[in-house]
């Protein structure tokens, strides 16, 4: 593999590549993210933003208690988020555990949801604590079952102990398993990497290793997709594009629960990576509760009042 000509796969070249990155000043990044949160958008753009945000949602259920029934209900909601309004677009994908992939894919196809992707969380999600063999097998399972997107977790232990080459190799191997069938999203669990320097380093590492998307969090650790973390990742994909002419996607996940938060994310995208990233092929939001708030705000824009929560479906 060529790794965009940035590294040759050896530890030395990876160290050089990561060492060439500039640092991130935490105070400055926090201040910039806070400033962008004060932007106010037009009512007409708000409608566009809500619909765009809906198409960017990876509608997620990642519970021990998930059942085929729950997953099928989620798929129905993903295809037609508002049963009373066919103008509401479908979400980007449903995001489930591996064993639910086949059920999700089959059900989506059955109800006319061929255009909705199935994302599988893989590589011993959420901790990533398993052998490489297990992680590869885990991913193969999901790909064989029909997953179109693989959300893998990196080995944070390896990253934090400086064994970057291990993290790199893992991503490369999982990328191979995904082949051409599945897009690869790489989850950093930024709440465990903690510093923005680490987030920037992980971003560049994952992009060179072949990630199609870089993703903040599993949703199992707090803090998750904070605005400054997303800012740092958006700066990374923007800079990576300048280096390679390849656009990598970004997926914040965890903690984005309402329309206001989602629109703030879109403002971050618009002013950092640029409007080219404002589409579901380059920006996704991993969420479960968010979709209903988007629907309620959409209804409010049409009807002029807030409907009771009973007017949106619980799943």
């Amino acid at each position, binding site marked *: 593999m060529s790794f965009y000509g940035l590294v040759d796969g050896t530890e030395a070249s990876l160290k050089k590549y990561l060492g060439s990155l500039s640092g991130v000043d935490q105070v400055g990044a926090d201040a910039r993210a806070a400033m962008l949160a004060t932007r*106010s958008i037009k009512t007409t*753009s708000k409608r566009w933003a809500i*619909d765009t945000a809906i198409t960017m949602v990876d509608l997620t259920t990642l519970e021990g208690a998930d059942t085929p029934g729950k997953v099928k209900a989620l798929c129905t909601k993903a295809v037609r988020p508002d049963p009373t309004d066919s103008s509401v677009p479908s979400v980007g994908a449903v995001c489930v555990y591996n064993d639910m992939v086949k059920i999700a894919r089959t059900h989506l196809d059955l109800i006319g949801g061929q255009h909705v992707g199935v994302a599988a969380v893989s590589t011993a999600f959420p901790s990533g604590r398993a052998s490489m063999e297990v992680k590869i097998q885990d991913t193969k399972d999901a790909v064989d079952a029909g997953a179109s997107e693989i959300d893998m977790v990196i080995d944070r232990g390896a990253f934090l102990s400086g064994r970057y080459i291990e993290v790199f190799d893992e991503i490369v191997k999982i990328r191979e398993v995904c082949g051409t069938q599945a897009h690869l999203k790489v989850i950093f669990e930024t709440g465990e990497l903690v510093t923005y320097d680490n987030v920037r380093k992980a971003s560049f590492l994952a992009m060179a290793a072949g990630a199609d998307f870089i993703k903040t969090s599993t949703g199992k650790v707090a803090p998750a997709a904070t605005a400054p973390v997303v800012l740092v990742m958006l700066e990374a994909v923007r800079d990576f594009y300048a280096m390679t002419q390849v656009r990598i996607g970004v997926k914040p996940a965890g903690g984005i629960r309402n329309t206001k938060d989602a629109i703030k994310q879109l403002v971050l995208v618009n002013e950092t990576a640029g409007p080219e990233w404002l589409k579901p092929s380059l920006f996704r939001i991993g969420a479960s509760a968010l979709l209903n708030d988007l629907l309620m705000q959409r209804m409010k824009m049409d009807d002029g009042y807030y409907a009771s929560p009973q007017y949106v479906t619980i799943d």
Partner: protein
Amino acid sequence: MGEKLSFEYAPAPESRALVSIKPKYGHFIGGKFVAGSKHFPTINPATEEVLSQIARGGKSDVDAAVKAARKAYTTTWSKMSGKERGKYLFRIARIMQERSREFAVLETLDNGKPIRESRDVDVPLSAAHFFYHAGWADKLEYAGLGTTPKAHGVAGQIIPWNFPLLMLAWKVAPALAAGNTVVLKPAETTSLTALLFAEVCQQAELPAGVVNIVTGDGSTGALIVNHPGIDKIAFTGSTEVGKIIARAVAPTNKSVTLELGGKAANIIFEDAAIDESVEGIVNGIFFNQGHVCCAGSRLILQESIADEVLEKLKNRMAKIRVGDPMDKNTDLGAINSKEQLLKIRELTAAGDSEGAERWSAPCDLPGKGFWFAPTIFTGVTQAHRIAREEIFGPVLSVLTFRTPQEGIDKANNTPFGLSAGIWSEKGSKVLWASQQLRAGVIWANTFNKFDPTSPFGGYKESGWGREGGRHGLSAYLKGVSHE
């Protein structure tokens, strides 16, 4: 998908209904608003709309104000305990907070600065200065200035148009805390928030004559500077006027502090956090349209990262939102006056003719009002006028250096020395550079951060004395040295 593929920000204008501007103003002398004789218009620089008529203070007005201030000093303020003075300052601070939106809207209308800045910076910091100095009022003997520090008496204070209310707070709060009474003259183009502050003094029931505000132009300022009844002069403004004041007070007993111009170096080392440095460059020079004496107007950039930083800076500058200052989304507002706009144009034209390369952010400037697009000049050398003279506008001169010492040498090679910025992720380099730089305020990995506890002031032609903190307080007390 939506009908329109765009993501636009709304004009989110702050309401003007909060403020009531009188058609005509007089002076505030002896606790009362008194009529002026001659008037001149004050305009909104974003629209050229005439907001009100401001009185041009003459000799009789200044005499009356000094007399009122002297009387208040002798009969009331100097006899009052520090604890009591502090109560008034706390009360003023609280009222300023309560009326903060009113102050912010009025400041933006009169000055042209974005409402986001007047709301988030000018007004809260002004209140903070009163709170901070309120705390000092009854602790002067513990300020390390001797056991019985004394006030000067009557302070004459002349402030600029770039931060009208904030500069008032920097001047009035320490003067009052130290036990002085004041005669203050706001800048000709921005008197309205000072006059609103006069209302706050009334509301706080501050004893009559403790604060007197005489509006007017440079001639009014000269009357204050030369008035024999004034014991201390505090001035913020241009170096040119500062020199005139220094000459005027030299043969007198007047004590003086001057906060003058600057041409601050913002030094970016190759090991800096690049994206945050770019934010810092933008904040350093485009904050308040570059109408900041401590603006980072010279970017001193290490050559090894120059291309990368400049490309990122241009991309970032293209996203600066220039326009209606009352819109909460606006980043860069109007130039304060036609005179200032002409000065910026003159100096930037000199940049062109001396061979520097101009680049301005692509943005639509409103048809009316005074506007200047955010601009950078590359290929600037030490010998260019735009590297030496203060432009006081949204214009950045970019110079490069090869070694850290060369960067420091270029930064210090200026008649000014108000502020400087250092950007590096390497702590030892930051400490080393801060010891080499000859500037009164040095920021590391940030820029344009202000706090009442921190002394502010310049080296060389950037001024005499300090404002803020214990050092600033000492400028309003007698028999103790400042510096």
